[in-house]
């Protein structure tokens, strides 16, 4: 029987040859990811259900990356980190990345890739909805709640309904002004925030396979914004080169069979697409940047697992080099590694860090920061009636702080161009 890549990976994890869409199957989990917001309640449930002295099923497979509320004076947030530290200590978890030490990484989905936890063909569950990001590596990754995570901690297993797949093919060669963020916002505008609920979103086509890993991660990252269970891109030589630069662990590459069944198929030519934004207050509220060009903004925010990777800052630097921003512009590297890279990666002979500083941007320490609002003292948090252009992934009311603020989701190119003019601006005006 022909299967999609998602079916094949789930079949492997269920010790089966074939699984059909719609079946509930029990999966063996390769990695469980958690962070500071959902880790402590997950550990509480684990202890309550398996007993105070219970041990996790496999310490090597539990990855704990605090990232949400890090640089804040909020005591409850600090207590959460203490609880992670305590649990990691009790259980002897080798993959705990403690705050305030040189092991600290930053945003979990980007750190997973950097630390070599993303391996083609594997199954990852995480207590964070953007766990689908890892699907860029030809693996299955999806978000779950604390109860499910606690169940995995004790048993290494979880049930899941095998999703139907939707296929999104992007033909053509990517123009310089277009980014993965524009592609996914395009799809969201077409299918809506529940257009892929309970389904896999599979990305294919020449344009997708021309993208570097970090851009691919932007595509799969926002699968959840369409309600998708997972986003997935089959592994190719670019994936293998990335993975091999991080780890020597074994992996297995799966691809969809030519005759595999899809719920639906969408096809785009990237040459016909334009830079787009998602207008307030929904990620599917798409408009071309041209059509809203000139809308005044009060802030530009370049950060998060969607738009705070090195590749995102390379894009932003193309526009900010030699220019000045005219609104508060927050540069929030997703991870410590990205922050370090800003100091050594260059664009036209100047380091990214120096480009951003000379442009007048404010560079923050790596964490989720204002992507999800966070405690009142969080860097970049929106206040009052802010109008923000942001490379993050959600613009629901209040997501970045103030309930009265409006957030336009965009590519790093558009966020940088708009930062310069103080108005929503098509990056083609600068390229």
């Amino acid at each position, binding site marked *: 029987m022909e299967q999609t890549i998602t079916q094949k990976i789930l079949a492997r994890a269920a010790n089966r040859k074939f699984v059909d869409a719609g079946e509930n199957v029990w999966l063996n989990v390769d990695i469980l990811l958690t962070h500071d917001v959902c880790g402590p309640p997950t550990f509480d449930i684990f202890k309550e259900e398996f007993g105070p002295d219970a041990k996790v099923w496999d310490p090597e497979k539990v990855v704990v990356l605090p990232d949400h509320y890090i640089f804040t004076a909020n005591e409850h947030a600090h207590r959460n980190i203490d609880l992670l530290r305590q649990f990691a200590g009790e259980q002897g978890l080798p993959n705990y990345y403690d705050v305030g030490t040189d092991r600290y990484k930053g945003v979990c989905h980007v750190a997973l890739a950097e630390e070599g936890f993303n391996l083609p063909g594997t199954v990852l569950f995480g207590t964070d909805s953007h766990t689908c990001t890892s699907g860029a590596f030809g693996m299955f990754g999806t978000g*779950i709640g604390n*109860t499910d995570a606690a169940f995995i901690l004790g048993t290494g297993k979880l049930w899941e309904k095998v999703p139907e797949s939707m296929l999104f093919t992007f033909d053509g060669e990517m123009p310089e002004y277009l980014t993965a963020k524009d592609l996914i916002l395009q799809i969201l505008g077409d299918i809506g925030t529940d257009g892929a609920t309970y389904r896999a979103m599979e990305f294919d086509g020449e344009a997708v396979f021309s993208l570097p890993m970090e851009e691919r991660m932007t595509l799969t990252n926002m699968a959840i914004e369409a309600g998708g269970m997972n986003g997935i891109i089959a592994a190719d030589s670019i994936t293998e080169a990335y993975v091999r630069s991080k780890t020597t662990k074994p992996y297995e590459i799966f691809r969809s069979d030519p005759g595999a069944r899809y719920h639906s198929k969408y096809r785009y030519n990237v040459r016909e697409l334009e830079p787009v934004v998602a207008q307030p207050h929904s990620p599917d509220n798409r408009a071309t940047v041209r059509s809203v060009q000139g809308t005044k903004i009060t802030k530009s925010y370049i950060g998060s697992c969607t738009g705070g990777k090195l590749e995102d800052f390379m894009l932003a630097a193309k526009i900010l080099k030699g220019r000045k921003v005219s609104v508060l512009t927050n540069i929030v590297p997703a991870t410590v590694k990205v922050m370090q890279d800003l100091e050594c990666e260059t664009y036209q002979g100047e380091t990214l860090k120096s480009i951003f500083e000379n442009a007048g941007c404010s560079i923050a320490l790596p964490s989720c920061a204002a992507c999800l609002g966070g405690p009142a003292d969080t860097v970049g948090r929106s206040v009052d009636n802010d109008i923000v252009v942001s490379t993050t992934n959600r613009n629901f009311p209040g997501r970045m702080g103030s309930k009265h603020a409006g957030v336009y989701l965009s590519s790093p190119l558009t966020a940088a161009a708009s930062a310069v003019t103080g108005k929503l601006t098509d990056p083609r005006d600068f390229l």
Partner: protein
Amino acid sequence: METIIQGKAYVLGKNIDTDQIIPAEHLVYSLSRPEEVKMYGKYALSGVPLPEGGLPEGNVPFVKDGAFESEYSIIVAGPNFGCGSSREHAPFSLKVAGAKAIIAESYARIFYRNCVDGGFVIPYETAEHLNRIVKTGDELKIDIGANTVENLTTETLYKLNPLGDVFSIVKAGGIFAYARQENLMAQG
């Protein structure tokens, strides 16, 4: 498990995301210390813009100022309820506030799983556009065996979609109770 759920309806629109159900700034409270747990009740659905809470009139808070529990126990909403983040704090906060069931046209996957596996609230789906028919404050009666909901205020009966595969988990009261019952995990 109860077979009848009766209570007042609280009506919402579509795409109610988890930031509206429990805004991120409150996630720092403990989910196990009673004095902090009640904060989840206090702030349940506090992120819903006021005019969109308690339809059709709107401007009805789910939990009154100063209270920790809601007078409404059945939430009625449009499609894509619970979209957004994976925070289990969302169905948890609804439960703490006193909600027993939700009737929506559809759910986001993670929220739905959390409701079921955590045994917090029962997530019913319906093909009817109930959030345009039912009014906040109407008295509803859900018959779990019959998969129906009756609006006692207007004396009308509506069908709910059967819970299907997940009914056994809902009935057991969550994934742990279910797994013990089915011998899927070592006894803790």
